[in-house]
């Protein structure tokens, strides 16, 4: 039998409520981490996955306490150790890689110094040996020219590089166990794929055991040997990664996998109703009862135990898992979107739009001279049809949100214009836009925590656009608000609640309702689902689609998540460094990724399927600034031609399938090359 290095036994962690009641966040967790294996812990926010990972290094967050059980590492219980003893374990035997490396590195110390500190603490090497070791570590995490990186400050590195440094620091003490808490969340898709690939390599190379905590089944699928699915503080499913992803026998995992949009499938994913129960809210029965479609009476009364299914080597906490085994070969059927023939009736035309964040100098302002020859966003030409969903896709810094802001009038365009309804040019200045134009274009933001005023009730939030645009008041106003709430599937008992009393999905529904209150023609969606859990994301996407079909609204959908875009959009525009690379009907863009950048992006998408490995075609370099001339993607292009790409702006080419790309290579040749790979 393989050696077990960490043994979690009947662990319960909880807190005391204000009424003095003990409420558990982790309930009776038992699991083992074997030597050299990578275990993925997956669950939605609030499922206790991070608490479990922290407990594995003997740490319980302030306000929480261990209610029972132990975490045994090297035959001693970490949770019973004093700080002095724990210091000898942490960093040396068990190391942690936090989510946001940028925040966990000290900003005013050089990278090399910080790694040196870790080495001083955890090893007995002398100065020269440590210097050598620093280079070695930075080399191991594949940072280019380790000697120069060591002399830089954290802010001089990109997010991906910072994360690599964090990995390097964690490896400094040669730990037996690495705990990773959402290490790639917040990184760009291509960077994420590279970091995961590195982690896989390190796991094999050093034989370190890893515990990988994430909400992202796609990332988990790429690294894990074994997966633990958590729900409401319990392990609901545990087993080999492949079996769990291919044949999830717990209804929660089944629903979770179905609610993830996938590149290979058009249409919207299924959503799971409801949300996870609050800690302490439930005392009896299965915690998943409310949301389960296999639920029976016994599930309400008794909570199922974790049961080992030997033929699948999987433990499952469900009475009815056999039903899921029986219906195993059911093909995933996504909800078909109504892809009606969109009338070619343009509603927004972006012509030669350029946007610059550079401040104009006083003299240039007076002479109205344009100084910034290399603006953040340049030459954007997009015609948007009434009733379509067009998605703007790209990594961070691609200018997608900037374009949205200028359509909304929040940012001035530098050149070009935005035409609305074919005849009216929308003013650059928000204050000069007519009330009708303002009403016609509404925004939905990424994070509902920020976009809803915390001191307003839902009623007050929804009343604002109604009062402003339609002058409603009294009974009529209230009825309208209730109508809106019902449209987004929230009842009227939400009227008097404050945003903090709503769950993430409910908040975003309120934000959606507020946008629809204005009866807009165009809704700008800025990463509207990226702050939500997967099952909630699917529900919000379905809601948006439903509302669109009911009202004929046009969506401009900005997202970094290509699978989400695939699910919801009719047309996709791919942006890099504020320049358009490719635009076309989404089914074609996803089928024949013609532009090299689209190819890179699509290659890096992580799917919750252990058989689909990401293709890493380009380096994950981060460019701060678009190149002065030539093709915008020249710096990272895997099909770089040389001087031509450097000096000449590539022409538009239109492929047979209707997508247009901007590249020097003939579109037919590109397609052949990509198929050949």
């Amino acid at each position, binding site marked *: 039998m393989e050696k077990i290095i960490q043994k979690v036994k009947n662990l319960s962690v909880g807190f005391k409520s*204000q009424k003095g009641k003990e409420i558990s966040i982790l309930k009776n967790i038992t699991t083992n981490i074997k030597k050299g294996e990578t275990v993925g812990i997956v669950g939605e926010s609030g499922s206790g996955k991070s608490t479990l990972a922290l407990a594995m290094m003997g740490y319980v967050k302030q306000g929480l306490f261990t209610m029972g059980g132990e975490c045994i590492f090297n035959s001693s219980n970490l949770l019973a150790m004093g700080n002095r003893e724990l210091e000898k374990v942490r960093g040396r035997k068990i190391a942690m890689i936090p989510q946001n490396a940028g925040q966990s590195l000290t900003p005013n110390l050089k990278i090399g110094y910080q790694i040196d500190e870790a080495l001083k603490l955890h090893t007995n090497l002398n100065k020269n040996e440590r210097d050598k070791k620093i280079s070695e570590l930075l080399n191991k995490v594949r940072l280019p020219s380790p000697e120069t990186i060591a002399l830089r400050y954290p802010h001089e590195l990109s997010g991906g590089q910072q994360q690599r440094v964090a990995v390097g620091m964690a490896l400094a003490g040669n730990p037996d166990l690495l705990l990773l808490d959402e290490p790639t969340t917040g990184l760009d898709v291509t960077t994420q794929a590279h970091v995961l690939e590195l982690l896989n390599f390190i796991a094999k190379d050093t034989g370190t055991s890893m515990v990988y905590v994430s909400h992202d089944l796609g990332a988990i699928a790429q690294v894990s040997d074994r997966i633990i699915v958590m729900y409401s503080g319990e392990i609901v499913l545990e087993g080999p990664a492949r079996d769990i992803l291919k044949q999830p026998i717990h209804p929660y995992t089944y629903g979770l996998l179905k609610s993830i949009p996938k590149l290979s499938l058009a249409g919207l994913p299924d959503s799971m109703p409801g949300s996870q129960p609050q800690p302490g809210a439930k005392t009896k029965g299965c915690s998943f009862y409310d949301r389960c479609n296999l639920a029976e009476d016994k599930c309400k009364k008794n909570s199922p135990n974790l049961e080992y299914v030997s033929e699948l080597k999987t433990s499952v906490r469900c009475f009815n898992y056999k039903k899921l085994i029986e219906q195993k070969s059911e093909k995933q059927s996504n909800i078909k979107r109504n892809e009606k023939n969109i009338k070619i009736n343009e509603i927004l035309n972006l012509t030669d739009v350029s946007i610059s964040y550079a401040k104009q100098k006083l003299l240039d302002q007076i002479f109205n001279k344009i100084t910034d020859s290399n603006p953040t966003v340049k030459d954007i030409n997009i015609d948007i049809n009434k009733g379509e969903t067009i998605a703007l896709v790209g990594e961070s810094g691609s200018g997608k949100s900037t374009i949205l802001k200028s359509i909304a*009038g*929040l940012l001035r365009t530098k050149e070009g214009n935005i035409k609305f309804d074919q005849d009216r040019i929308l003013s650059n200045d928000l204050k000069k836009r007519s*009330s009708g134009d303002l009403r016609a*274009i509404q925004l939905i933001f990424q994070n509902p925590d920020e*976009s809803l005023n*915390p001191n307003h*009730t839902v*009623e007050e939030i929804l009343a*604002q656009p109604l009062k402003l645009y339609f002058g409603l008041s009294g009974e009529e106003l209230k009825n309208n608000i209730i109508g809106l709430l019902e449209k987004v599937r929230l009842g009227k008992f939400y009227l008097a609640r404050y945003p903090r009393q709503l769950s993430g999905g409910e908040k975003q529904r309120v934000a959606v309702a507020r946008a629809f209150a204005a009866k807009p023609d165009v809704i700008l969606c800025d990463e509207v689902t990226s702050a939500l859990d997967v099952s909630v994301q699917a529900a919000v996407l379905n809601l948006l689609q439903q509302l669109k079909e009911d009202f004929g609204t046009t969506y401009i959908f900005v997202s970094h998540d290509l699978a989400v875009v695939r699910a919801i959009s009719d047309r996709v525009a791919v942006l890099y460094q504020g320049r358009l690379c490719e635009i076309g009907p989404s089914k074609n863009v996803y089928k024949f990724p013609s532009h090299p950048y689209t190819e890179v992006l699509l290659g890096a998408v992580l799917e919750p399927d252990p058989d689909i490995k990401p293709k890493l075609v380009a380096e994950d370099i981060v460019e701060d600034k678009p190149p002065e001339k030539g093709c915008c993607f020249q710096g990272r292009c895997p099909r770089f031609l040389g001087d031509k790409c450097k000096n000449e702006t590539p022409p538009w080419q239109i492929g047979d399938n209707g997508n247009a790309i901007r590249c020097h290579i003939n579109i037919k040749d590109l397609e052949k090359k990509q198929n050949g790979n």
Partner: protein
Amino acid sequence: MATKTVSEFKKKNIYFKISEVLVTMASKPSGFIGLSILVFHILLAFLSPYLAPYDFKAIDPSLMLQAPSSEYWFGTDSLGRDVFTRTIMGGRIALTITFFGSLIALLWGGLLGIFCGLVGGKIDDVVMRIVDAFLSIPWILAMLLIVSLLGTSTEVLIPALGFFYGKGIVRVARAATHDVIAKDFIVSARARGHGNLSIIWNEIIPNVRDAILVEGAMRWSWMLLGFSSLSFLGFGVSPPTPDWGLMISNARGLMSFAYWAVIAPIVGLSSLIIGINLTADAFAKALGIDRSTKAPV
């Protein structure tokens, strides 16, 4: 979450909110002590004319500088006036003037700060530099100038104090506004086309109100000290009105043998300031707790 009933989410009215905050404040010892001292002083200010055993301005040379006795609890001062009477009445003017002065400071400082924070740009730059310039002038000198030009009447003191203590509030309100202004709900209101006034009233004030109120409460105690300093220098209220600052100033020359005439007003003044400070602290904590999400159940 579905277990919560509709009634739990009724919008609370303002009186309910105030009483909730007061209860939270009083539930901690320091808040309870602070509130008690403050309430005691306010009650004293209202009731002292009826409680005072003697006439506050009755001069009797035969009773000069008597030590505390059962007849004159806190002794008498150099003019033979009863120190107890003058001490319990000595906070009335100071409390009134500084209370209204703080309100004025809060209003102009808060609104100007919010406005500057919202509009930003050149207007913000100019206004903030003017505020900085005023901050660099020692306020007491400027106050002395104003008082000697315009007199020491209440109508002069309240706005003058209100002005000088509002400068600091401008900065606090501006900083609080900056915290809020970057949030998407402001962007959203702007994109909808709401005007500046509507944004200030609906979106900003509810979110910066607490920070500004707490700052105002702190200013109140500073202003009290400032006002007493003015009286001490002879530029506050004029004799024979009982006032702590004035009393300390009059009695300080004889402090070595008639300490009671100095200690009584000092205790009065400092206890009030401590009371206000403790209350302001508890107030801040109560509002903070109110805002953070409470643990479920």
